[in-house]
């Protein structure tokens, strides 16, 4: 009877493997060499309403206005990122390959060294200036702290209880950038404000636990916070749930998260992965690809921003908006230095 089980297990594992590469080879059969773009998504894949979707938008923009063709792979969890990168790099037609997410940092560095005639770009690459990048790899970084500073300023100006909250996912240098910028923004406009800080955990699971996010947020709201900013991935969806329940405000992250709790989302700090992907493709197409460097997208480059549109304009007074716009200019021309830790 053990045999029956091994058949069962094989079927399960095979269907798992089928998921991993379900979208291999989507796109057109190859044209001229090095003319297409390949992209490997982070865990979560397309439809995550966050960073992967932003990267995908960038691909679409490049397709529409630059006429490039693209292929992508959505890997599952675990170690298949590197093989996904290699699979794309091995195709003659593909000349530029993206990895989406800091988790690709080591994999894409190795693959870039093995394929010197292809170009690579990695979004959120955790760049270490002491380790030189291969000349065919661009590290794309965002100044999350700058965008977080501006939403922090909004929170600091709008809090009625003089208490605001921050909820992070996995405690890590990347997420602390959001926290540092936010705290600096709050304090800059409202030095007396109290800032409650909580993290959902210290592992990757901490980005996937909305029930925990909700409890963290409920706790901060009951301690007097009336606005909470989250940088916690799916865990942050629990923050919006708490905002609905307590009828308080939350601030979204990465993309405009208004739809998660309409009326309770004060604004969102948006990271424009789409702009970054599009810009890099454009540079590559025009033969201006500058490998071996870190390309940083901040307020100046329109790589980070906050949402102010017809949905949330009724929530944010004009005077607050004007003050925050003034801060934006001060950051862009260097009068305000936003801390990252």
């Amino acid at each position, binding site marked *: *009877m053990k045999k029956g089980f091994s058949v069962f297990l094989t079927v399960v594992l095979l*269907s798992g493997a089928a998921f991993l590469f379900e979208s291999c080879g989507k796109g057109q059969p190859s044209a001229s060499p090095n003319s297409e773009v390949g992209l490997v998504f982070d865990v979560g894949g397309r439809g*995550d309403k966050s960073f992967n979707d932003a990267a995908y938008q960038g691909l679409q923009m490049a397709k529409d206005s630059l006429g490039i063709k693209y292929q992508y792979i959505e890997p*599952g969890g675990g170690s298949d990122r590197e093989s996904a990168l290699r699979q794309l790099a091995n195709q003659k037609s593909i000349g530029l390959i993206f990895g989406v997410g800091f988790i690709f940092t080591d994999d894409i560095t190795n693959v870039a060294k093995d394929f010197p005639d292809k170009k690579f770009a990695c979004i959120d690459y955790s760049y270490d200036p002491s380790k030189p990048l291969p000349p065919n790899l661009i590290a794309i970084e965002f100044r999350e702290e700058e965008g977080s500073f501006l939403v922090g300023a909004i929170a600091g100006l709008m809090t009625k209880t003089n208490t605001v909250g921050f909820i992070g996912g996995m405690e890590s240098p990347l997420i602390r950038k959001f926290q540092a910028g936010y705290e600096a923004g709050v304090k800059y406009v409202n030095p007396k404000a109290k800032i409650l*800080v909580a993290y959902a955990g210290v592992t990757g699971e901490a980005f*996937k636990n*909305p029930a925990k996010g909700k409890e963290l947020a409920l*706790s901060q709201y009951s301690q007097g916070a009336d606005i909470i900013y989250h940088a916690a991935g799916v865990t942050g969806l629990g923050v919006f749930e708490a905002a609905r329940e307590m009828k308080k405000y939350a601030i979204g992250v990465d993309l405009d998260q208004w739809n998660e709790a309409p009326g309770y989302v004060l604004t969102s700090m948006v990271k424009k992965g789409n702009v970054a992907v599009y810009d890099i493709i454009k540079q590559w197409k025009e033969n201006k690809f500058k490998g071996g460097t870190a390309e940083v997208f901040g307020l100046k480059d329109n790589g980070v921003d906050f949402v102010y549109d017809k949905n949330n304009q009724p929530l944010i007074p004009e005077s607050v908006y004007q003050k925050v716009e003034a801060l934006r200019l001060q950051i862009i021309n260097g009068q305000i230095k936003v801390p990252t830790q």
Partner: protein
Amino acid sequence: MISQIFSLAFLAQTIRITVPYALASLGGVYSERGGVTNIALEGIILNGAFSATVGTYYTGNPLIGVLCGIAGGLLTALIHAVVSINIKADQIISGIAINLFAVGITKFVLEILFHSSSNSDRIPGLPHIKLGFIEQSPDIARLFGNPLVLFTILIIVASQFIIFKTRFGLRLRAVGENPEAADTVGISVTLYRYYGVLISGALAGLAGTWLAFDQHSFTDGMSAGRGYIALAAMIVGKWNPLGAAAACLLFGFAESLQIQLQGAGLPTQFIQMIPYVVTIIVLAGFIGKAVAPAADGVPYEKEK
């Protein structure tokens, strides 16, 4: 600060965190008392949450959603039952396979139904029961107005009775302790093991249902390790319904304490350790030896 931490809101939060642990842990007790190790709880919770969400979304009726959540848990547990009891395969491997399978299948169907790999559309929550006598405290009223909280308390107490004071419970324990003896006196080992695993499926499915209604949607991987914590609580509670529930309450308390203390200015890394430190202290210091049912995890081979 102390009074702020140990408030009614804190109590309510502790119980909210405990409910899914307790339901799944209780499920584990039924399954393992009958002799089937069930680390598939994690996957059952996830499938339960997903079924409850889909059921509620398409009917608009949370009560049908609850039934779907239970059904999703039952179906997942059925796989584990067939593989463990009929095929007599390794129960740990079957559990791991089911947990991996649950992650994949929920995400796959999520994309088909909701065109998103991260979360479903919003669903309505469970209707709240009005309890007149505690309306003055909104935290407590909201908590005990939730039918699943009331059900959880009832089922914990009832399970203690069922497992130790009824004929069904005696037979379930018999097939988990000494299946040969049970078989000799005419108790169907297969049947009672099915009962154990299926009840655990229904309860863990309900734990998932709680998560889905708490969040008003399904999100990818939302069980977030709760099945494993529930399993640990079951062992700490020595395979007793009341013991397991008490262990879950302790874990819920530690987690809630951790959440409250994060605002108190202590280093967050230190505070993150609290639940785990509590677990180790309790395991090492207060519980003593935890002995599993003798035939737990051992497939029963009928002698010819």
